[in-house]
């Protein structure tokens, strides 16, 4: 029951009094309790505070009416700071970290009345594409529990797909919202870089990190995007731009919109079912009067190489703060020595993938290699951005696959880091450029696994992504399914 409801259904039931906020939260918590131990979507469940907040809404009807998300449960990725709720980044080094403040996007959700039911699993420090690199065990894909849910926001996407939350926040540095949304068959938006404040988003790669919503319907995704977006003086990279009312423009006709098909994204070896899903969706858009034009993004194939220099370089700098002094884990040392403490703390506190990226980034920034790697990659990043700017002279949005592969088995690629990096080939270029991207589900493949496509837009034009996704789902009479958990 409650596991299937959308935000608007929840709101309407609460306002009608068909269910109290406390009953709603209780039902959801018991559903989570029954299913989370196997899926491992949540690292922390905030039952006590959620029930208390629900009671406040039940005792104050005016509050419930006024707040656009009053009483709506939400799951938050565990790299977004939540005041007095443990925030681990799925890392041993932050296992017991309890932030004294909320991330701005979390604060905005709370102000709108959302109730946090828990913090979700992820790849440690968001470094990964499968949620296998968590210090607290992998999350399972609810559609096939032997398979990965994608990553790094795998916990958030799996929670939404399995009904353990109607919606969630994730973060996307190179595809970490779009890939798990695709693999779990839900909607995910990576907003334009600068649209959503990064304050309180525990930094991985600061020039790429962006928080965004995950939901089961376009309407819900739009409502959340509206709430969390906007300029924040606490984040100097957030941009002073008015936030459109995404939820109010959804029904606008899409006739005449021109979508570009970047040919490089289809020259790859792509799973045939994924390719077919994109082709079918193009047919649907054509019936809606959308025009298509072939475009070229010639530097697409260099995205992975550029990203895996730039992101680790920024990460190696950002993660220098975990030194066992101000917060987090500190390893005991045999003799009282500061350097020993640093070395032991970081050796025991970080997992293998985080160490690998710190090493890679440190190397790329070190004397003698900075120009050859970091500057070279930053120049290629510019070429990738210019590809997009040029393509957008010919079209309003782009359609691509989200990833070349369907969800694979847990453990299948764990021994080969480079093979995992290549899964990100279609999501990385948009991250490097900073443009918005959305993962849109189409339904299930013949193997019972979700398929979908990616829409990319111009800077700060999330609107067109919402309009297109909404029109597409309406045309195919899309009805979100909950992955049935045994």
């Amino acid at each position, binding site marked *: 029951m409650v596991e299937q409801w959308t935000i608007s259904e929840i709101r309407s039931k609460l306002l009608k009094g068909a269910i109290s906020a406390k009953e709603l939260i209780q039902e959801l918590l018991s559903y989570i309790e029954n299913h989370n131990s196997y899926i491992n979507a949540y690292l922390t469940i905030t039952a006590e505070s959620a029930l208390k907040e629900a009671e406040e809404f039940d005792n104050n009807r005016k509050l419930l009416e006024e707040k656009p998300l009053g009483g709506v449960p939400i799951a938050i990725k565990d790299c977004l700071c939540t005041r007095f709720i443990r925030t681990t980044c799925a890392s041993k080094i932050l296992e*017991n970290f*309890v932030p*004294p*403040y909320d991330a701005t996007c979390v604060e905005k959700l709370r102000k709108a009345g959302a109730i946090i039911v828990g913090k979700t699993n992820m790849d440690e420090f968001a470094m990964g594409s499968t949620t296998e690199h968590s210090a607290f065990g992998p999350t399972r894909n609810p559609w096939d529990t032997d398979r990965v849910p994608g990553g790094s926001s795998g916990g958030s996407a799996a929670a939404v797909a399995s009904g353990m939350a109607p919606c969630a926040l994730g973060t996307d540095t190179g595809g970490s919202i779009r890939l798990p949304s695709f693999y779990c068959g839900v909607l995910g938006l990576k907003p334009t*870089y*600068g649209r959503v404040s990064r304050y309180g988003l525990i930094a991985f790669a600061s*020039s790429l990190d962006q928080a965004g919503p995950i939901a089961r319907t376009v309407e819900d995704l739009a409502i959340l995007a509206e709430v969390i977006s906007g300029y924040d*003086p606490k984040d*100097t*990279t957030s*941009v002073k731009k008015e936030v459109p009312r995404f939820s109010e423009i959804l029904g606008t006709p899409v006739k005449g919109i021109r979508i570009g098909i970047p040919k490089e994204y289809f020259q790859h070896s792509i799973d045939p079912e994924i390719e077919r899903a994109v082709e079918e969706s193009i047919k649907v858009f054509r019936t809606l009067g959308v025009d298509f034009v072939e475009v070229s993004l010639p*530097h697409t*194939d*260099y995205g*992975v*190489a*550029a990203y*895996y220099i730039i992101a680790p370089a920024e990460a*190696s700098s950002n993660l*220098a703060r975990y*030194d066992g*002094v*101000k*917060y987090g*884990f*500190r390893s005991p*040392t045999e003799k*009282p*020595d*500061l*350097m*020993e*403490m*640093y*070395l*032991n703390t*970081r*050796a025991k506190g970080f997992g293998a993938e985080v*160490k*690998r990226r*710190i*090493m*890679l980034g*440190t*190397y790329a920034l*070190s004397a003698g290699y900075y120009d050859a*790697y970091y*500057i*070279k*990659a*930053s*120049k*290629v*990043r*510019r*070429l990738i*951005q210019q590809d997009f700017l040029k393509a957008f002279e010919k079209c309003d949005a782009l359609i691509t696959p989200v990833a070349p592969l369907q969800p694979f088995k847990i453990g299948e690629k764990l021994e080969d*880091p*480079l093979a995992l990096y290549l899964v990100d080939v279609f999501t990385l270029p948009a991250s490097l450029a*900073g443009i918005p991207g959305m993962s849109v589900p189409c339904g299930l493949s013949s193997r019972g696994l979700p398929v979908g496509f990616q829409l990319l837009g111009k800077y700060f034009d999330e609107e067109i992504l919402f309009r297109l996704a909404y029109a597409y789902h309406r045309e195919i009479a899309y009805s979100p399914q909950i992955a049935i958990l045994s």
Partner: protein
Amino acid sequence: MSHRILDRDQVEHIAKLARLRLTEDEKDLMAEQLSSILDYVAKLNELDTTDVDPMHHAVDRSNVFRDDNPHKSIDHNEALANAPQTDGTFFIVPRVI
């Protein structure tokens, strides 16, 4: 791969810069895996980027100023609450000098 871009000595040097202690096994694995990643990354050199302006940020901006007005920040005790060791006023670390 016959020739590795990074050898064990380089791995040890980078680990020192990164303040990471690696086990002997980790050093070998790291040399192998990082070399394979860097070998892939070398494809960037296929591109001529002579006159390309490096892109460090998605939104090009610099020097974002604000007025220097004092405002409330987090409480001293809250700031210390997550520290592994404090004396109630300062963070405590092993003796440095």
